C-alpha cells in the first residue's frame, strides 16, 4: 500500500486520513520519565526482539531504527509525514522506532509511554486501522507483557491515556465551514461527546490549509469500539455540514478562485508556506467539486512534501528564501 498522503489523494475527499494510536507499557519497568540509560537500552532490546519475532512469522515486517542514527533533517520530515510525534522528535536520542515500508504502521519506543503503536491510512479507514493496531498489540503483549489492571485497564504514564490507551483521529478538509465561520459550532458538537477538534498547520487560523483533526479524549470507561464509532458519527456529521456549505457556493466564483490558485501554483517563482497552503487547499476543494480533474495534481502529497523539513531533506539545508524558491519549483514540476 502507498503511504497515507499518497493514498489520501486517491481515496480521500473531505476526510483526508485516519489514525489510531495505542499507548502501552511493559509491566516491569518504570515509565520513561523515571527510566535510566540502562533501562532505555533494555526496553529497546526487548521491543526489538519482539518485533523481529513477529516479522519472522511473516505477518508484519517492521524495520527497527535507532533514532540517534537518523539525521536531524529527516527527524523533522518524519514529524511532517506524521510518522513520529513532535514530542518524540524533541528528545529523540534514547528512542527508537519500528516502522513498515509504507510508514502506515509504526511503533514508537520510549516516548511518553514505553510503546506507542500507530496505524495511519488515507481516507476514512478507522476500523481497518484499529484492527491492525489491535492485532499488533495482541502480538506484542504476548511477548512483552503490558501493564494492565482489571479496573483501570492499560496503565499509562499520563492519566489522560489510561484504560484503552487509544487515541483515534481523523483529519478533515473543511475550507467552506472555515470561511463561513462554522468551526466553533463543529467543535462544540464534538466536545459534547468527548471529542476535540484542532487545526493542523497553523492552529485554527486562516494560515493553514483548512485541515482539522478530531480525536477522542476519553479512554477510561469507554470501549475502543464505542470511542471509534462516536468519532465516525461526528466525522460524518461534519462532512455533511461541509457538503451543505459547499452546495451554497457560487460556482462561477469558485471556479474563478480555483483556477487562479492553479495558475499561481503553476507559474509562481517564490511560494511561501502560508500562501502555498491556502492555494493547495483551494486546489483540493476544486478537485472535490469536479472543477479540476483528479489526476492532474495531487494536493495532499504536495502539501506534505512541500513542508519545510521535507524540502530541506530533498534540497539540503536552505534559507527561508531558498526554500520558497525550491517549493515553487517543486510545485511547478508536479503540475
Amino acid at each position: 500500500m502507498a503511504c497515507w498522503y499518497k493514498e489520501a489523494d486517491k481515496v480521500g475527499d473531505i476526510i483526508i486520513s485516519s489514525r489510531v494510536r495505542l499507548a502501552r507499557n511493559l509491566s516491569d519497568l518504570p515509565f520513561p520519565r523515571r527510566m535510566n540509560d540502562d533501562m532505555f537500552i533494555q526496553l529497546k532490546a526487548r521491543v526489538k526482539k519482539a518485533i523481529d519475532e513477529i516479522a519472522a512469522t511473516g505477518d508484519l515486517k517492521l524495520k527497527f531504527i535507532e533514532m540517534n542514527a537518523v539525521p536531524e533533517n529527516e527527524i523533522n520530515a518524519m514529524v511532517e509525514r506524521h510518522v513520529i510525534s513532535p514530542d518524540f522528535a524533541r528528545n529523540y536520542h534514547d528512542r527508537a522506532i519500528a516502522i513498515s515500508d509504507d510508514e502506515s504502521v509504526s511503533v514508537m519506543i520510549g516516548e511518553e509511554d514505553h510503546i506507542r503503536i500507530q496505524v495511519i491510512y488515507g481516507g476514512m479507514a478507522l476500523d481497518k486501522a484499529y484492527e491492525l493496531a489491535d492485532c499488533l498489540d495482541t502480538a506484542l503483549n504476548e511477548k512483552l507483557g503490558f501493564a494492565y489492571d482489571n479496573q483501570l485497564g492499560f496503565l499509562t504514564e499520563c492519566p489522560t491515556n489510561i484504560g484503552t490507551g487509544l487515541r483515534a483521529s481523523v483529519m478533515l478538509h473543511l475550507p467552506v465551514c472555515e470561511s463561513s465561520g462554522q468551526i466553533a459550532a463543529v467543535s462544540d458538537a464534538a466536545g459534547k461527546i468527548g471529542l476535540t477538534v484542532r487545526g493542523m498547520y497553523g492552529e485554527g487560523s486562516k494560515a493553514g490549509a483548512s485541515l482539522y483533526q478530531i480525536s477522542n479524549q476519553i479512554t477510561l470507561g469507554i470501549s475502543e469500539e464505542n470511542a471509534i464509532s462516536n468519532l465516525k458519527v461526528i466525522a460524518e456529521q461534519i462532512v455533511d455540514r461541509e457538503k451543505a456549505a459547499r452546495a451554497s457556493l457560487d460556482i462561477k466564483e469558485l471556479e474563478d478562485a480555483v483556477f487562479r490558485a492553479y495558475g499561481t501554483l503553476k507559474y509562481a517563482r517564490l511560494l511561501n508556506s502560508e500562501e502555498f497552503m491556502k492555494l493547495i487547499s483551494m486546489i483540493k476543494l476544486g478537485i472535490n467539486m469536479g472543477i479540476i480533474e483528479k489526476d492532474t495534481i495531487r494536493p495532499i502529497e504536495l502539501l506534505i512534501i512541500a513542508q519545510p523539513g521535507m524540502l530541506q531533506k530533498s534540497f539540503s539545508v536552505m534559507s527561508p528564501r531558498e526554500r520558497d524558491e525550491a517549493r515553487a519549483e517543486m510545485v511547478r514540476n508536479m503540475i
Partner: protein
Amino acid sequence: MLCQKCGKNNATTHIKTVINGKVTEQSLCGYCAAKQGYTGFSAGPISNILASMLGQTIQVSAGISSHSCGCCGATFADVAETGKVGCAECYREFGAELLPYLKRIHGGVRHTGKVPGTKQLVIKEETGSVSELKAKLASLVAAEKYEEAAVVRDEIKKMEGK
C-alpha cells in the same frame, strides 16, 4: 474571588492541604499556584484541555513524604506536580488519591475496553490452558464483558469435558 497571594487576579486554583490532620485551604490565581508548584494535572499539552474539566482543584494528601511507591520511588507530590505517574505500581500505591482525578478526567473509573489476550488474531493459534482461560474469564467478568466471557466459559467447559 481574588487570589489570596497577590490579591490581583481571580483565584482559579483551590488548594486543600492536609498536614497531620490539620486542613488549610488556599485560593490562588493560576500564576501564583504555578509559582508554588501546584501545577497538578494542568501541565502538558493534552492536559490544557483538562484543566477546565478538573476545575483545577488540587488536594495534597496527608503524609506525602512518608508515602512513596515501593517500585519506582515516586511520591504522590511528584505525581501531582508533573501530572505523570511513575510506574504501573503507582496506580495501586496512589489509587485512593488518583481515582477522583481519573473520574474527573474520564467520567468513569472502570475500564470497559480490550482485555489483553482476548483477541488472538495473528501469530499464534494455540489455546491457553484451563487455568489461563479461567483467569481470562475472571478478568472479562470484572470488565463486565459478559458476551466474551460466555465464549470463554464455553471453551473451558469444552476443555474440561475432554
